[in-house]
């Protein structure tokens, strides 16, 4: 009980010291940054670029992952039949398809619906369809399936009489899924690399700052200042550097994404991109949080290694 009260009092004292001296700590951090101004600016730029590359890789993974999810949700096979067969035969094919394991829904898409769907996909570019005299699209059977059963369904369809052509998006899906998995791995590698390099940069800067201010630190030690009081300006310095880098990365990333979206939504309208605004908000929040955590950890590592030295 007594020990708990002492710990509680210790924390209250620390908070009180921080509150009483916040202005002093900020001023000290500014002075420490000024002493090595150029190296601090270069650190902000390098941290910013490192964070930007990590965030760019993560955003690519994010986009490809979204594409995979959409393809997974809309896993389907289009089945084409000879145009001269009668309605009864088409119904017979549909009934046969429905009996296959893994098939969730089967429906006939006539030539008009096929035309309208292409209009929707093309969006602004749909005006090219007006130059065609006749509707060039053929009717087909749309088969919604469970993605895991794609191969067995395709095998089953090959055995049904009257089917001319089977078109599936398995190949594209596999490619996107592979790309997404590569980007995901790259993203994780980048995060680890970003973490390690930022920690190294920050702890080095903090150690240099401590060395430059060793006289003042020794005086504070002789006056009886606690370690926390001496360390706090250096922790603020580390946080300012990483948050500065994070801010820089966020600005570059926002501009890059704006450009990338304008490029991708033009010629590739059928790629289902995530909402740009929410993507930027999420990435910026992630970068700033990561910067703050790395700044804190880097400063603590720097202080620890300087103390042990």
């Amino acid at each position, binding site marked *: 009980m007594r020990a708990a009260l002492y710990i509680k009092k210790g924390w209250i*004292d620390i908070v*009180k*010291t921080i509150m*009483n*001296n916040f*202005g*002093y700590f900020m001023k000290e951090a500014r*002075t420490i940054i000024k002493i090595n101004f150029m190296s601090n600016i270069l650190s902000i730029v390098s941290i910013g670029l490192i964070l930007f590359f990590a965030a760019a890789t993560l955003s690519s993974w994010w986009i490809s992952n979204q594409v995979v999810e959409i393809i997974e949700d809309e896993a389907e096979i289009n089945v084409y039949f000879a145009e001269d067969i009668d309605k009864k035969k088409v119904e017979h094919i549909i009934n046969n398809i429905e009996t296959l394991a893994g098939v969730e829904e089967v429906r006939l898409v006539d030539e008009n619906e096929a035309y309208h769907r292409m209009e929707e996909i093309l969006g602004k570019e749909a005006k090219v369809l007006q130059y065609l005299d006749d509707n060039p699209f053929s009717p087909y059977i749309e088969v919604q399936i469970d993605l895991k059963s794609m191969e067995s369904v395709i095998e089953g369809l090959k055995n049904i009489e009257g089917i001319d052509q089977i078109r599936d998006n398995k190949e594209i899906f596999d490619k996107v899924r592979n790309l997404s998995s590569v980007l995901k791995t790259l993203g994780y590698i980048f995060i680890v690399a970003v973490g390690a390099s930022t920690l190294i940069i920050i702890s080095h800067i903090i150690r240099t700052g401590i060395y430059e201010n060793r*006289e*003042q630190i*020794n*005086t*504070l*030690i*002789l*006056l*009886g*200042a*606690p370690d926390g*009081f001496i360390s706090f300006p250096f922790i603020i310095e580390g946080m300012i550097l990483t948050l500065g880098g994070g801010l820089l990365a966020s600005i570059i990333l926002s501009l890059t994404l704006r450009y990338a979206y304008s490029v991708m939504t033009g010629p590739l309208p059928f790629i289902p991109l995530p909402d740009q605004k929410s993507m930027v908000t999420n990435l910026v929040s992630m970068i700033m949080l990561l910067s703050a955590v790395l700044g804190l950890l880097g400063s603590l590592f720097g202080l620890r290694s300087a103390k042990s030295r």
Partner: protein
Amino acid sequence: MIEAEGVCLNYPDGTMALRNVDLHIEPGEMIYITGPSGSGKTSLLKLFIGIEFPTDGKLTVLGQPIIRGQASKIRQMRRSIGPVFQDFRLVNGRTAIENVMLGARFLDMSNKKLKENAVIALKKVGLEKKMFSMVEHLSWGQCQRVAIARAIVRKPRLIIADEPTGNLDKDNAINIMELFASLKEENTTVVITTHATHLINNLREGRLIHIESGIIHQERLD
């Protein structure tokens, strides 16, 4: 306040700085330590602050044994001491008042109260007009007075001052000695090393400790 029993201090190069020092200093006492250069005055003060450790004997300052391996407890003890270093140890790039405030920032004192106390301390050492001057623009004597103000702003139980009047003119030196003597009213113990024996003779209060070749001789002034 300070208890020393057979304290010896030998430096690694073989120099015997202090030999068999026995001392008992009470709260509120005024102690003047004199002796020629290299006699061991500064070494004794370094022991009191916990910068050096006795190589033999027992030393306790403010109830804290001065032994190795108790760094954090010794640092805590230092918060009750107002040290005035021979080389002042002021922080460049800061004003006089900022340096004075630095001495007590980590003590339980609000920023407003600390500022008020710092102004009072600077007035006591006659530097109120220089409080916003950068310390690197002050003379040696002024820097010494800033260091003294930094020591007294902490309202310490013990003041340890190494040659606090060494760079001061006669009037300022008398003022500082009187300031230290007045701290007796607050039951503050003051330990001063000095060459200025003429100033001590005027004060007629406290105890004189003379060190020669690391051996101490004591006499009462009052």
